């Protein structure tokens, strides 16, 4: 038990929080047919994260969130601007903007001095779930001990805070978001501020991307954003199950993926743990494939 708390509790919690948060937001992306914006924003936040890191010299939550939020809004604005000014189709404009942001982020990472044991290319590409340890946990009592809980990795608090804020925002904007996704023109004709709603959605995506970044890296965030929502899209045609089910499925995939990657092989006596972030991503792809096959079977 103590060993589980010290080694597995924090990463498992992070995985579940990241899966639930991204799974919740993913439905809005998929329903708005803007799944690639999720891809774009998760890549585009990198320079913001690195700059936030360079300014404070530590992996502090708030500066990284601010930097990432600014980068995400700028990227989203640039994509829509390029579509108009350069008359590029959405996919091409997205491809140009996010690769440029990501490339700039990589170079900043190498040149700004932000590169350190805390933040390096490997973290961007693979996440650092395995490094989230909780050495203060001396037994089950630690779960109730404020001092020991304070020793949890900062990533846990960042994810919990961001996840709670996003859940609250989605709940408060429940009806407008539904309208936005189904018929943005009609929403605007009703007087809803569609542009503000869009911006709120982009900021939530950026926050989720930053918070989940430490757990699974910036590429695999895409899996958690798109896959649970896409799987729900295949098995339900009701709105509430789509959105809430996406969150639940994201959390389940994350927990199961983490278990399959490390603890399960260990429990079976094999010493070889594999990348937990990778396992979560693979599992989320399998869930979509399974849902597609189930749907095909159901519809004949």
């Amino acid at each position, binding site marked *: 038990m103590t060993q589980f708390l010290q080694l597995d509790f924090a990463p498992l919690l992070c995985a579940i929080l990241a899966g639930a948060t991204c799974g919740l937001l993913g439905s809005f992306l998929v329903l708005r047919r803007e799944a690639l914006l999720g891809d774009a924003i998760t890549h585009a936040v990198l320079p913001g994260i690195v700059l936030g890191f360079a300014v404070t010299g530590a992996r502090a939550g708030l500066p990284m969130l601010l930097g990432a939020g600014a980068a995400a809004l700028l990227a989203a604005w640039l994509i829509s601007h390029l579509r108009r000014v350069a008359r590029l189709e959405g996919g091409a404009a997205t491809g140009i903007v996010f690769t440029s942001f990501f490339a700039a982020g990589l170079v900043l990472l190498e040149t700004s001095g932000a590169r350190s044991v805390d933040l390096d290319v490997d973290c961007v590409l693979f996440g650092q779930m395995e490094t989230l340890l909780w050495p203060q946990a001396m037994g089950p009592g630690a779960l109730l001990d404020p001092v020991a809980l304070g020793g949890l990795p900062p990533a846990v608090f960042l994810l919990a805070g961001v996840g709670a804020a996003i859940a609250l925002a989605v709940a*408060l904007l429940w009806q407008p978001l539904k309208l936005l996704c189904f018929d943005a*023109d009609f929403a605007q004709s009703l007087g809803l501020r569609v542009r503000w709603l869009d911006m709120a959605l982009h900021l939530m995506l950026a926050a989720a991307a930053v918070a989940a970044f430490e757990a699974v890296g910036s590429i695999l965030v895409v899996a958690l954003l798109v896959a649970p929502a896409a799987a729900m*899209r295949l098995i339900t045609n009701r709105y509430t199950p789509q959105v809430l089910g996406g969150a639940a499925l994201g959390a389940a995939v994350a927990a199961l993926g983490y278990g399959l990657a490390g603890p399960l092989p260990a429990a079976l006596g094999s010493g070889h743990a594999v990348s937990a972030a990778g396992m979560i991503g693979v599992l989320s792809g399998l869930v979509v494939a399974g849902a597609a096959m189930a749907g095909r079977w159901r519809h004949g």
Partner: protein
Amino acid sequence: MTPLSIRHLSVFYGERPALEDVSWEVPAGLTAIIGPNGAGKSTLLKAALGLIGHQGEARFFGTTLDAARARVGYLPQRASVDWDFPASALDVVSMARTPRTRWWGRLPRRERDAARAALAEVGLDALADRPIGQLSGGQQQRVFLARCLAQEADLLLMDEPLAAVDAATEREIIRVLQKLVQAGKSIVAVHHDLASVPHIFQHALMLNGRVIAAGTVAEVFTPAMIVDTYGPGLSDDGLAA
């Protein structure tokens, strides 16, 4: 009070004008916007509603759109949305009630009842919980009409409410429109089928990038005006019927 008054409205797509200096006073009653493809009919509605950038102004009931928002309803083209969206017919109609109520959680019962009543008005109350993707094209159009009704607006701007529906649906929609007009509402509808204009509408705007003519159907829906609007060579377009 004029429901909608458009002054010097122009819309440009890049360099190309889609609408040039349109001024038009919308009369009370049932009005058709008529013109060839690309004449800017939908663009006129969208610009008036502030959905696309434009020059000039549109005043609703003598005031700005924001001040008159609750009195203005909109029915977009059916093709403009994803009919595979996870929503029931009642969900879609309920969306019209969003500005009247709180934003979080489920819609209050009172609002859902209003949405249900609008569905009943178009004869779809039995299908309220049916996913919209399983409705026929005509039923989808009636769901859109019900959503427009549920706005309880005094002026309804409709983008092709009769496009691609079967004859029964068309009769049903026309019945609802005429009932609305009798109740004192004003309706502006983009319309494609020239032959049916005199049977349905009281007023017409002939549009082709600019205003060709506006007035009662008897005044403006004449062969000469139609040639001015569509250009010559329209004789076999069903007009003779």
